[in-house]
C-alpha cells in the first residue's frame, strides 16, 4: 500500500534582505516538489510578483496561464505568457505599500520534477492587507526542459526580499 510522505528538504528564513534565493543540489529522489513561501519586499510596492526560474535556465522555456485579482477583487483578470524566460507568480509578494509586517503567502507544486520531458507547475498565492480583501493568484505553468530540476531560484518583483521572508522546500513521494 502506498505510504505518501512529504519531507522537508531545506528551508530558509532571511536574517538579512536578499535579492533572490536559490535552492541548489536538489535531490532527485522524490516524485514531486512543493515550495511554501511567506514573502515581503523592501520596496514600496503593494501587491507584487515573485519570479520563478529553474535550473538557472533563462531561456524562453516557461509558459503560464494565470488568473489574478487586484484591488481586493474589484478586478479579476486572466492572461497568459508563452515562451517567457521565467514564471511570473502574481500576488506572491508585497512591499511596504501594504500592511506593515504583512507577508504574501504562496504555494507552488512542481510535478514529476525528475522527468526528462516538460514539467507541470501549479501555484496559489495571496497577498495580505488589512485594508480590503486580499488579492489572489492562480498560475498554471509548464517548464519545457529535458533535465530533472536541480535548482530553484525565486526573486521578488522589485527591490529585495525583506528580513523574515521564509521559504520551505518539500519533497513528496509515495513510499
Amino acid at each position: 500500500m502506498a505510504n505518501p510522505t512529504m519531507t522537508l528538504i531545506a528551508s530558509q528564513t532571511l536574517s538579512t534582505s536578499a535579492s533572490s534565493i536559490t535552492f541548489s543540489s536538489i535531490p532527485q529522489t522524490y516524485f514531486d516538489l512543493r515550495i511554501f513561501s511567506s514573502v515581503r519586499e523592501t520596496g514600496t510596492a503593494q501587491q507584487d510578483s515573485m519570479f520563478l526560474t529553474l535550473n538557472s535556465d533563462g531561456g524562453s522555456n516557461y509558459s503560464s496561464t494565470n488568473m489574478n485579482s487586484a484591488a481586493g477583487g474589484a478586478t479579476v483578470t486572466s492572461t497568459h505568457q508563452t515562451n517567457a524566460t521565467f514564471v511570473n507568480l502574481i500576488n506572491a509578494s508585497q512591499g511596504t505599500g501594504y500592511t506593515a509586517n504583512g507577508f504574501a503567502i504562496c504555494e507552488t507544486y512542481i510535478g514529476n520534477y525528475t522527468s526528462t520531458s516538460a514539467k507541470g507547475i501549479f501555484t496559489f498565492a495571496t497577498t495580505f492587507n488589512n485594508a480590503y480583501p486580499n488579492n489572489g493568484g492562480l498560475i498554471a505553468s509548464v517548464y519545457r526542459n529535458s533535465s530533472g530540476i536541480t535548482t530553484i531560484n525565486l526573486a521578488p518583483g522589485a527591490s529585495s526580499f525583506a528580513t523574515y521572508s521564509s521559504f520551505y522546500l518539500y519533497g513528496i513521494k509515495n513510499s
Partner: protein
Amino acid sequence: MTDETPTKIIVCCADHDHANDPACEIKAESVIVPLTADEIAANEAAAAQAKADADARAKEQAALDALKASAKAKLVAGQPLTSEEADTLVI
C-alpha cells in the same frame, strides 16, 4: 540613500557533509553571495517584463470596463450596440 550590492542566498539541499564533500559547490548549508552582472540584468529584465504584463492587463481591463459601460448606456437609451459592445454581454 544606500548603495548596497544586491546579494542572493544559496541553500544547498544535498544531504552531505557540506564542508568536506567535493560535490558541494558552496561548502556550506547556505551562503550569501553578490549577484553577478548577468543576474542583476536578468532580474531587471524580469521586473520590466512583469510590469509590462501588468500594464497590459490593466489596459485590457479598462477597455473592457469602458465597453461594458457604453453597452449599458446604449441599452438603457434603446440604441444599437456595436459588435464589441455586444460581446461584453453575458446571456
